């Protein structure tokens, strides 16, 4: 039987990150396997409370006003087993003028039948900065359903930036649902990069309400579907504040029998607000493909390189 420390290191190693980073006293971290908290470390000004539930963990993160956390906080939510449900209920409260960057790894390397449910309420105080980089590691066969849901309130001149990325394994089902509201001068910047294969299903529903004057928004989705994978992207941005500015961008590459759908919705309720949108869905560009093939790459390798480039853009 593995100790909690060994299990934590194993889980963390799957992220291609050195587990020794967790020993740095300046790196706050929280590692959860299923409904067990394996490791927890805070830093001054950052309070992290956890409560184990039957099927997951409730997490409360509170960052004190004016606190700027110097090194990224590492969150690792995963399941080392192949079946089960993990529900993470997060309450995040970022104090005024505070700043924090979170690197969250969601690790399910052996998933056969797993559900990972994230239900987050995030409040970002005036002038605060909150960045959340979510990196997923799934099993090569998928075998997982992921439901990240968040409701985010962004205060005056506060910044919320998030990136969702699958870096290893198959999608399975990913069903993202984020709703954000920006106050005066607030900024929301959300990017999702996912590549589906086989019978993967990708659903993204991101909404940004630019309520405040001079608020800013960017909703950016970069998706690739191959084989019989399907993607449905619903990005919605509304602007009610004067001088609010936003852009909704969706780029999808479709190969084989993949199906992609993009529904950008923009609503402007103020004559001095402005929102643009752009959606491009198509196969891999033939000039790009032929260039790489003329250097000796097989068609599959060339497509892979082009898609990886598009996703990392």
């Amino acid at each position: 039987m593995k100790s909690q420390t060994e299990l934590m290191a194993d889980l963390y190693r799957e992220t291609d990150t050195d587990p020794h980073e967790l020993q740095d006293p300046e790196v706050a971290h929280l590692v959860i396997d299923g409904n067990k908290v394996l490791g927890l470390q805070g830093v001054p000004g950052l309070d992290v409370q956890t409560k184990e539930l039957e099927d997951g963990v409730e997490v409360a993160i509170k960052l004190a006003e004016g606190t700027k956390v110097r090194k990224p906080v590492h969150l690792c939510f995963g399941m080392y087993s192949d079946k089960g449900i993990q529900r993470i209920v997060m309450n995040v409260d970022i104090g005024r003028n505070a700043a924090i960057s979170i690197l969250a790894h969601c690790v399910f390397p052996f998933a056969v039948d797993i559900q990972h449910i994230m239900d987050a309420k995030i409040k970002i105080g005036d002038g605060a900065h909150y960045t959340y980089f979510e990196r997923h590691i799934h099993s090569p066969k998928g075998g997982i359903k992921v439901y990240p849901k968040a409701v985010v309130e962004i205060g005056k001149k506060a910044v919320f930036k998030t990136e969702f990325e699958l870096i290893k394994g198959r999608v399975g089902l990913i069903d993202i649902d984020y709703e954000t509201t920006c106050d005066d001068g607030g900024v929301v910047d959300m990017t999702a990069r996912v590549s589906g294969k086989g019978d993967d299903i990708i659903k993204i529903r991101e909404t940004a309400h630019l309520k405040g004057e001079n608020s800013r928004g960017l909703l950016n989705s970069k998706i690739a579907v191959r084989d019989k994978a399907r993607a449905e992207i619903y990005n919605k941005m509304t602007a009610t504040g004067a001088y609010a500015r936003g852009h909704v961008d969706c780029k999808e590459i479709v190969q084989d029998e993949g199906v992609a759908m993009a529904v950008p919705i923009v609503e402007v309720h103020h004559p001095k607000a402005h929102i643009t949108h752009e959606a491009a869905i198509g196969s891999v560009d033939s000039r790009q493909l032929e260039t790489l093939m003329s250097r000796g790459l097989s068609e599959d390798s060339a497509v892979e390189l082009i898609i990886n480039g598009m996703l990392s853009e």
Partner: protein
Amino acid sequence: MGVLEVKDLKLQFNGKPILNNLSIDFWDGHIHAVVGPNGAGKSSLAAAIMGLSGYRNFEGDVIFEGQSIREMTIDQRARAGITLAWQEPARFEGLSIRDFIKSSAKDKSEDAVRKVLHEVGIESSEYIDRAVDKTLSGGERKKIELASILAMKPKVAILDEPDSGIDIESIQRIFDAVRVLKADGTTVIMITHSLAVLEQAEHAFLMCDGQVVDKGDIKKIRRYFEDKCLACDHKNIPLKEIGGQS
């Protein structure tokens, strides 16, 4: 000796002949130029040799090192040793210059990537992490494409208009890179409209109306630029008007 032979090539677009019984023999290790007016079929010849989509359904044959390559796919031809640099290189959003060059390089080390960038006059420390995308000028993308060909070390490199989009100061670097290819034993075929490019070659072909109408040393073929003389009854149709590469 011919490393690459094009034999009696006939290619049509929408019923109109683009290449008319074209035969060319490219000598091993030489720098060749293929010159001619717009619509002469120069780029179509390059596309047919490389096996690009839309240019595979031709009559005749393309022989590389004694073997027919007409049934080979683009990547098979490339792995056999043939490559092509486009007149307008592709953009690759999110793909770094480093990864683009490494993808084709024989030596995938960081030093080797930096070396080929240096050979085309690109400052590697400034560029290597940048994407091969719209933030680069056409000339920069052209140099990076040439760097990827240097890294690939092909047996035959076809360069379509190697000087187009290149500023005057950089042209010499492109020519230096062509000489590096030759020094590595690569047969270079430059498709060009430019006298400056022609003068870098050792041997040239003049194309018109889908045929080779003259060939020989540079002194002979440069008369085309000096006199605008054509060795045939000039009746070219720009190919883009009928849906192909010009």
